[in-house]
């Protein structure tokens, strides 16, 4: 048996069982320990029982000691002394490398900190961090660390803090599970290096608890943020879905909220009210939001501004507020709302707000803004959703609100309609009673006449410009107005003017052909048409196919035997043009005499 180490001033002794307990360490010497003490040799230490730590330092290390693993073996280290160290070098600044603590529970005295101090390569795995008090125990980890499979558990309302001060080294946190009922906070500080936090589960961090994540990349992290929680992300990239989940939150703006800066997050708040204030971020929102709740998307910085928001892939019903009173909203970029029912607070400044709506009912709770503010609302017709009345191309409501007195939305309200493929555009708007709104509709068919119906009444007939812009036209509101633009399709129109009424071939001789051409007929039409000819021959007694008629239009011409009664040709394109008729006469051997006939030419739609 090899003596494992020296116990100084300690009641604890280290024992070695002389055999290897863990396969990965099969070549290492294992030491059994019964309590705290100084670890002066590298190796694998196994705790054989629960211990209460009353001193300032539980495990101390000799200078230069490295490669130590402490296996709690399912036991508990109860830190009963305030602000004690689990690990600490004999000399505070000792550099101790590759220290691992695994497989047990560390219970922290209420209100105290427990320090895991190491300068490099701290490895913590399969540890339950818990407390026995009522307030705010904290685990402080310094240095280069990896933390795997940590459960932070509280049984009371207290919070748990794990403070990872990685000021000088990157650290890795994997599979942390935090269960709290109190005001616990999780604070990660990683000032200079990007850290990776993966597969974590943060639940029931409630009260005034906080989660700080700075300069981190998060994979598949489940944040279940309770009432009055606070989550702060900066430079955050979240992968996996849902990334942030708010369960049972019942607060309002003063309640739980999430701050994201430079983030790209997936956000879901199925049952709850939550607030996401994002700055320079893309927020993907999923879930079925209660219409009675309000979700705040935005970021308040020191100057009280919201900017550069991209709200995408909203597949649920979303109550969206992108503006708060006394907060300026500008430069939202592309605010894309997909297939949802959005309840929007909109504040329009001179920088303009562009909202792209993809198959959504957009319902405005408020529109206000600075003088000259511009609100651009664009609709993409290719998207449909359960929230969009299928009979409507867009559904746009501004219910019973008073538009800010300092902004004339009416003069600058623009509506874009994408992907026009049909002849009808329908949407519903609802402004406060008495408001006059001048509408300009974009992206319509160019040079096309539209009937504009207001609540079913034909009110305007207007023609779009070559770029597909129509308007402006004025709508006065007293209740919701169904605005329907229907492409004007007039009744078939065909006007024919014959510029000749008779032709005379004069003297003709049998077995000879004669022609009279250049007989003009003016055609004005908006539809295709056919031409029929009919008539009698020169002589009912003698003639056989004596007269042919040719009608020419450009290079297109057809000749039909005059004796037939049938379609001469079909489907001329709509045109305003001149036809030229040409008659050719072939004289068979017929008796001498004067001949005449009546040729009936029908132009039919």
């Amino acid at each position: 048996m090899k003596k494992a180490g020296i116990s100084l001033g300690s009641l604890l002794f280290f024992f070695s069982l002389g055999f290897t307990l863990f396969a990965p360490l099969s070549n290492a010497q294992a030491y059994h320990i019964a309590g705290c003490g100084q670890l002066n040799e590298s190796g694998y230490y196994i705790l054989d029982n629960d211990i209460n730590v009353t001193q300032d330092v539980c495990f101390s290390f000799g200078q230069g000691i490295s490669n130590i693993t402490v296996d709690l073996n399912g036991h508990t280290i109860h830190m009963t002394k305030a602000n004690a160290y689990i690990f600490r070098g004999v000399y505070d600044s000792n550099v101790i490398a590759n220290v691992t603590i695994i497989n047990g529970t560390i219970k922290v005295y209420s209100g105290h900190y427990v320090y895991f101090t190491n300068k490099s390569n701290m490895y913590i795995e399969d540890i339950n961090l818990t407390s026995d008090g009522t307030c705010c125990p904290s685990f402080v980890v310094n240095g280069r660390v990896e933390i795997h499979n940590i459960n932070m558990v509280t049984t009371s309302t207290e919070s748990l803090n794990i403070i990872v001060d990685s000021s000088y080294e990157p650290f890795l946190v994997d599979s942390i599970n935090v269960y709290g009922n109190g005001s616990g906070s999780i604070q990660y500080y990683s000032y200079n290096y990007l850290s990776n936090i993966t597969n974590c589960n943060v639940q029931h961090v409630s009260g005034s608890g906080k989660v700080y994540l700075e300069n981190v990349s998060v994979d598949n992290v489940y944040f279940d943020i309770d009432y009055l929680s606070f989550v702060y992300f900066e430079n955050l990239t979240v992968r996996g879905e849902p990334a942030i989940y708010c369960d049972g939150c019942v607060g309002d703006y003063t309640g739980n909220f999430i701050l994201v800066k430079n983030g790209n997050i997936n956000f879901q708040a199925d049952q709850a009210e939550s607030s996401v204030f994002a700055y320079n971020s893309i927020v993907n929102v999923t879930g079925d939001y209660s219409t009675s709740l309000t979700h705040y998307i935005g970021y308040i910085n020191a100057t009280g501004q919201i900017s550069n928001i991209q709200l995408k892939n909203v597949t649920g019903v979303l109550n969206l507020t992108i503006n708060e009173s006394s907060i300026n909203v500008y430069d939202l970029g592309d605010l894309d709302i997909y297939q949802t029912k959005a309840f929007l607070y909109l504040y329009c400044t001179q920088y303009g707000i562009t909202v792209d709506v993809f198959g959504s009912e957009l319902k405005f709770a408020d529109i206000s803004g600075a003088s000259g503010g511009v609100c651009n609302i664009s609709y993409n017709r290719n998207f449909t959703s359960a929230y969009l009345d299928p009979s409507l191309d867009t559904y746009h409501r501004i219910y019973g609100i008073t538009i800010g007195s300092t902004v004339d939305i009416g003069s600058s309200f623009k509506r874009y309609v994408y992907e026009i493929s049909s002849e009808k555009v329908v949407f519903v708007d609802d402004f406060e009673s008495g408001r006059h709104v001048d509408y300009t509709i974009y992206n319509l068919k160019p040079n096309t006449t539209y009937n504009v119906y207001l609540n079913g009444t034909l009110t305007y007939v207007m023609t779009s410009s070559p770029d597909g812009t129509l308007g402006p036209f004025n709508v006065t509101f007293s209740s919701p107005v169904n605005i329907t633009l229907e492409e004007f399709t007039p009744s078939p129109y065909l006007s024919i003017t014959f510029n000749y009424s008779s032709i005379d071939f004069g003297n003709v001789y049998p077995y000879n052909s004669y022609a009279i051409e250049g007989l003009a007929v003016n055609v004005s039409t908006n539809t295709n048409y056919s031409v029929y000819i009919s008539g009698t021959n020169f002589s009912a007694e003698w003639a056989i196919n004596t007269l042919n008629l040719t009608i020419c239009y450009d290079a297109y011409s057809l000749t039909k035997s005059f004796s037939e009664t049938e379609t001469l040709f079909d489907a001329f394109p709509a045109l305003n043009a001149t036809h030229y008729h040409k008659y050719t006469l072939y004289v068979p051997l017929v008796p001498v005499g004067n001949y005449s006939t009546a040729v009936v030419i029908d132009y039919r739609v």
Partner: protein
Amino acid sequence: MKYASLLSLLILALGLVAVPAYSDTVTVSATVSPYISVTFNYNAVDFGTVTVGSTDNHPTPDYTTGVYNVSIDTNTNYTVSAYESGDFTSNGLTLDFAVSSNPTVDGTFYTLGTSSQTVYTSSLTETFEGTEYHQYLLDVGDIPTGSYSTTVYITYSAA
């Protein structure tokens, strides 16, 4: 025509209930002139050897075979006139000529002199495209033996 324009306006006013159709009636006229085309299908008649003092000699081959015919296309009645150059008459030979629609049925024979005379007038009631047959007979006076020939001129004219 003004009629068409007026009609189009009316239909436009009626809107959806009317199916527009626009037509006009054009009077086309022509005057067909008299026309006759005759093609002679023979150019010589030979009576062979005849006897002095004989009459009504038939040519060889005989006209009853129909070999002396003309093709006619016409939309009008016409007359046929004929004469001979005088070579027969001055030498004591007399040539008789007839026009018939049937080679085996003799027409009315006329003795050809040196002046043109009408030998046939058609009585068509419609256009005619067909064949007419010419018939020849020769009377020989008391003249010296020898070979004699003459030229016969036949003219078809619209009546």
